[in-house]
């Protein structure tokens, strides 16, 4: 029936290789790594310089006394000393531990609730809108209740951190599972992935970008809740970053206060950009990132 196919074989091979080469020609290019890095960095540096200049200009107008609004110079000088002091690192250890434990708990809760809502119709009807409602609730509004329930303790802080972050994470999971392309599900099922394997091989990886986005947003909420908590729930024996901020205000040490704020800002940025990098890595693997690396 097809005894002659061999004679066309080699010809077809060459055609296929040629067509592939033509199809792929000119696809591999892009700016050098260094230039990409620079083009992404200089606008940020410029904006930072501008912000510092505005700050210094306001100080120079004499709008406020120098003790109330010190300029960048004294603040960065103080920041230098602060970075070398054990006080900062003790504070970071306490705050970092709280952030890690609280966020981990929020991930656990968010994943379980998210998966439940995504899978079980009754749960979706019951909890779906409640999760969104929870997200709109400013987490600091939970603190009075948390303090009554748990007194001035770490439990009160964890309670609010989890309540603040878990809804975002759950929403990320729900969104991710809901928007797995049906075609990939059909392909996965046809390839033999059923039940748990369908989750392992198709749903979980397909939902990953949305889950990472949920984690990123959840982290932002967790970090805010944690800072609010540390300002409100000051535990005398544990000088967290937030507690140090409160002390600085009580002692009117504005240079230190702003130095601590800068630490908080940078910490938040570092974690946020870690999530950003994870997100970007995923999108690059998936090919949904354009060549400019934006």
């Amino acid at each position, binding site marked *: *029936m*097809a005894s*002659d*196919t061999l004679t*066309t*074989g080699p010809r*077809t*091979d060459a*055609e*296929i*290789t040629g*067509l*592939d080469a033509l*199809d*792929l020609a000119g*696809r591999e290019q892009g700016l050098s790594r260094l230039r990409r890095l620079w083009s992404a960095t200089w606008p940020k540096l410029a904006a930072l310089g501008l912000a510092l200049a505005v700050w210094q200009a306001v100080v120079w107008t004499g709008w406020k006394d120098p003790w109330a609004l010190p300029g960048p110079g004294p603040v960065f000088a103080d920041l230098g000393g602060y970075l070398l002091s054990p006080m900062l690192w003790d504070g970071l250890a306490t705050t970092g531990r709280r952030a890690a434990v609280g966020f981990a708990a929020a991930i656990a809760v968010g994943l379980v609730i998210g998966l439940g809502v995504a899978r079980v119709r009754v749960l979706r009807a019951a909890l779906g809108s409640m999760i969104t409602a929870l997200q709109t609730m400013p987490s600091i509004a939970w603190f009075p209740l948390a303090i009554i329930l748990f007194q001035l303790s770490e439990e009160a802080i964890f309670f609010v951190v989890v309540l603040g972050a878990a809804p975002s994470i759950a929403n990320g999971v729900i969104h991710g599972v809901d928007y797995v392309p049906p*075609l*990939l599900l*059909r*392909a*996965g*099922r*046809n*390839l*033999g*992935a059923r039940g748990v*394997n369908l989750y392992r*091989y*198709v749903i979980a*990886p*397909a939902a*990953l970008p949305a889950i990472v986005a949920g984690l990123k947003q959840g982290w932002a909420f967790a970090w805010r809740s944690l800072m609010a908590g540390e300002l409100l729930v000051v535990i005398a024996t544990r000088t967290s970053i937030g507690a140090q901020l409160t002390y600085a205000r009580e002692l009117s040490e504005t240079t230190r206060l702003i130095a601590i704020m800068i630490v908080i800002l940078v910490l938040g940025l570092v974690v946020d950009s870690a999530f950003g990098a994870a997100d970007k890595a*995923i999108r690059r*693997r*998936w*090919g*949904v990132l354009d060549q400019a690396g934006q």
Partner: protein
Amino acid sequence: MTSTTTTRRSATGSVALRGVTKVYGRGANAVLALDGVSLDVAPGEFVCLVGASGCGKSTLLNLVAGLDRASGGEITLDEGVNPGLMFQEPALFPWLTVEGNVEVPLKLRGLPRAQRRERVAELLRTVHLADFGRKRPHELSGGMRQRVALARTLALDTPVLLMDEPFGALDAMTRDILHDELERIWTERRLTVLFVTHNVREAARLADRIILLSSRPGRILWSTEVDVPRPRRIDSPEVSAIAAEVTDRLRTEVGRHGQ
């Protein structure tokens, strides 16, 4: 749904449909997609299903693939056969490399790592993509992606291949070459192919038998054997003559819906 009687001819890839019916929806909104379709596909046969929109071609393949359940009738496959299904889109997993994609069905069957590697390499050679295993799907052209999808489906080691307009989104030249490829692989592996298309020439180029389906509801209208020797060319006079005949009948059927 699998036959228990055909033990001697197990896993040879015959497909039998008896009065298969599919209804979507309920009550007044119910739509009859397939109405009593009966069809016997012999092992190793290449059957093309041709029809206009709404003839339930894709529905039929989904039923045979077991991704959907028939409302009535019976579908019989040989013992232990799970047909492989290909779509118009390659439906590759973007989070995996080309190799990773082809490996998925092997992993799901529990093949040990060394064997998986060997099989993946062999399958990628089969579709002429041996050098592209480490690439990601988005780095390949449409035709190459569809070949990865073919390799991934072949990794199921199934004798029955269901193809749902697999080359519909490709340019003509790529499609011609993939016809040659598919014909070669079908011959080498003695596959049974059920191939859905609305491209009549494609059907005449590939099929042993062309089956024309009516639209709304889908019924078998007419079928013909394609006695053109292989390998064929899509632009040969014999293929064109058959395509012309099928086109005429298809147009008559489409025209019926305009009245």
